[in-house]
């Protein structure tokens, strides 16, 4: 008997078009179901439907039926499903409630009425399972993004759910941490339904794939058959190394040069230590490395947002930096005004930049009314409009689906000749596809910086 069953569900958020259209799905115990699909295709909404958050929390128009462990989600609130179902969201910052790690993990256990003497042992067991036992007494405010995501996973595993729902759980993690997190989730023994935008790793973990397009299920197959069908019909979802790009150019004039550059947020603990790098006009350089290796700090040094405390960072021309979080590009009330901020309010240039990223027609919308994928593109337009000599992009593919990544790669390559481009990314296939050369860091140490040909 299926653990969870979705029967002909059609759902629309209040005042919006349908996010799910006639979706049917069954999840058996122990299955690991991977949800794929472009941004806005309905993956997160389907996960919320399985958790009962749709329609209870979000309202809207709901047709059909979702049954989880024998409970009809229309009749049972999400809080009543807690313990049977657990959900991990994309951004750990937006799901942490309490201030100490062990208390945070215990929060759900207290809510579901776990006998008091079992709460702490179960919380500590869950932390041990995810390799975070040593963090138990730490304040959550002092944890890194990767540590926080592990703590959030521990919070869900502590509930010992039968159905585990993961909404892009690895989007903020480096490849090694991401792989570890998915394996940990799988080892819990619960049935898992999860969405991912980096399918290469996720396909290795999944036993079944469901592909959504405009709210409809267009593929629902076991992993081997799904791989074949994706390879034939959606090749970028199986292998992202076939991006059409023109790599390995040799740069021209120097635009930015790091010479023995060092930077520390806390005295005595340098994040960047005697770093050397030259960026030339016409080339596209990828900066890779694990969480905490100083990539974002180097990006900010390159763009002039931070200043080297040792050595020098020279720049020739104008620099622009795209931050990781597109939620920071919501300062003005209209999309075109937001983009025009960087060019002194010139809306015609803003409109051209919006058209270049596929947002033509949305100029009058409020930035907060855009979907997550559209917000990513708005942020990109906000820096491209400047036409910088040095373009620095910090994790530009976070939360971006493979087809959009291909468009982004093409966009960056098409404009590469006019500027130097530095991309900070964990996304190895994307890096391999767009980079003229890759610089790999490990905790502030440069591992490999290929010389110019």
């Amino acid at each position, binding site marked *: 008997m299926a653990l969870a069953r979705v029967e002909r569900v059609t759902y629309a958020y209040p005042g919006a078009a349908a996010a799910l259209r006639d979706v049917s799905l069954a999840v058996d115990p122990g299955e690991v179901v991977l949800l794929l699909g472009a941004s806005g295709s309905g993956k997160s909404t389907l996960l919320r439907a399985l*958790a*009962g*958050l749709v329609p*209870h*929390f979000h309202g809207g128009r709901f047709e059909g039926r979702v049954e989880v462990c024998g409970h009809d989600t229309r009749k049972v*609130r*999400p*809080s*009543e*499903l*807690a*313990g049977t*179902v*657990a*959900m991990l*969201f994309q951004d750990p910052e*937006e*799901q*942490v*409630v*309490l*201030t*100490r790690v062990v*208390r945070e993990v215990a*929060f*759900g256990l*207290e*809510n*579901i*009425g776990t006998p*008091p*003497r079992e*709460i*702490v042992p179960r919380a500590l067991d869950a932390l041990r399972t995810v390799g975070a036992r040593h963090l138990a007494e730490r304040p*959550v*405010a*002092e944890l890194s993004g990767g540590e926080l995501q592990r703590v959030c996973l521990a*919070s869900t595993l502590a509930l010992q759910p039968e159905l585990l729902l993961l909404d892009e759980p690895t989007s903020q993690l480096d490849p090694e941490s991401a792989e570890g997190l998915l394996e940990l989730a799988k080892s819990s023994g619960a049935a898992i339904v999860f969405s991912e935008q980096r399918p290469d790793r996720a396909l290795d973990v999944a036993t079944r794939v469901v592909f959504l397009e405009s709210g409809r299920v267009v593929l629902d197959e076991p992993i081997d058959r799904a791989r074949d069908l994706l390879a034939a019909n959606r090749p970028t979802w199986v292998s992202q190394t076939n991006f059409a790009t023109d790599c390995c150019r040799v740069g021209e004039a120097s635009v930015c040069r790091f010479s023995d550059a060092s930077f520390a947020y*806390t005295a005595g603990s340098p994040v960047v230590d005697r770093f050397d790098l030259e960026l030339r006009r016409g080339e596209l350089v990828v900066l890779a490395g694990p969480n905490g290796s100083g990539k974002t700090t180097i990006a*900010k040094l390159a763009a002039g*947002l931070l200043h080297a405390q040792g050595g020098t960072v020279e720049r020739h021309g*104008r*620099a*622009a*930096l*795209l*931050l990781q*979080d597109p*939620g*920071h*590009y*919501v*300062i003005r009330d209209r999309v075109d005004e937001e983009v025009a*901020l*960087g060019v002194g309010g010139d809306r015609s240039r803003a409109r051209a930049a919006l058209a270049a990223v596929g947002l033509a027609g949305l100029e009058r919308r409020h930035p*907060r009314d855009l979907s997550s994928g559209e917000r990513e593109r708005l*942020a990109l337009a*906000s*820096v491209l409009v*400047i036409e910088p000599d040095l373009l620095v992009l910090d994790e530009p593919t976070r939360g971006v689906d493979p087809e959009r990544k291909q468009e982004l790669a093409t966009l960056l390559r098409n404009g590469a000749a006019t500027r130097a481009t530095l991309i900070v990314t964990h996304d190895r296939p994307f890096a391999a596809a767009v980079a003229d050369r890759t610089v790999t860091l490990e905790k502030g140490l440069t591992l490999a910086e290929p010389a110019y040909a």
Partner: protein
Amino acid sequence: MRPVAAVALLGAAVAAALLARHTISVGMLAVALVLVCLRAPRSRRWPYLVGTTLSALALFVITPFVETIGSHPLWVGPIVPVLGQLDVTREELWSALFQACRLAAVGFAFAAYALLLDHDRLLSGAGIARRSVLAVALATRLVPTLERDAGGLVDSLRGRGVAVEGVRRRAALMSPLLAGSLERGLNLAEAMEVRGYGRSGRTRIPAPPWTPTDVAGLAVAALLVVAGVAWL
């Protein structure tokens, strides 16, 4: 030490500082509390320490000009409307030092409370309503989150070559900051609901048993108050 005992100790230190009559006693209490605060991470403690020290210094400077006590003038100044004749006496200086030490002791005690205590355990242990516990915990997280969001908005502008200087430009960021905070609150509420918040029959982490250190902490707290009244 459990948070309740630590709060009792800090409260007793504040009470002793307010009850004591000798400047040296209050000064020593303030120094002891600064040493306690130094256990907190440097990046977190400096706003509290600098803020309290500056406030105490300001009080020390202003008090002699607004108080009128003593008969040993050290300096006599002009007559100022409203304030009258400005002068500084030896007694006023001692009084100013005493008040400044008091303020410093109270400020450093609050800093130790804010920086070093586990507020989750303190409030749940005190048996206060769960909603209040959550409100305090979320408020505690709100400040650093807002700080980070504000930094992100400023960086997004600087990354586009837009300078963020002056009160007017910074004030313009308040609206997106507030909107972002509300959006974050909605996401947090969703995450809490899916973790069972609001369901009936909830339980609570059992409080750990009292240790000799906790009992000693309470005893020292009581002694401090008595000492403040009788000897300090």
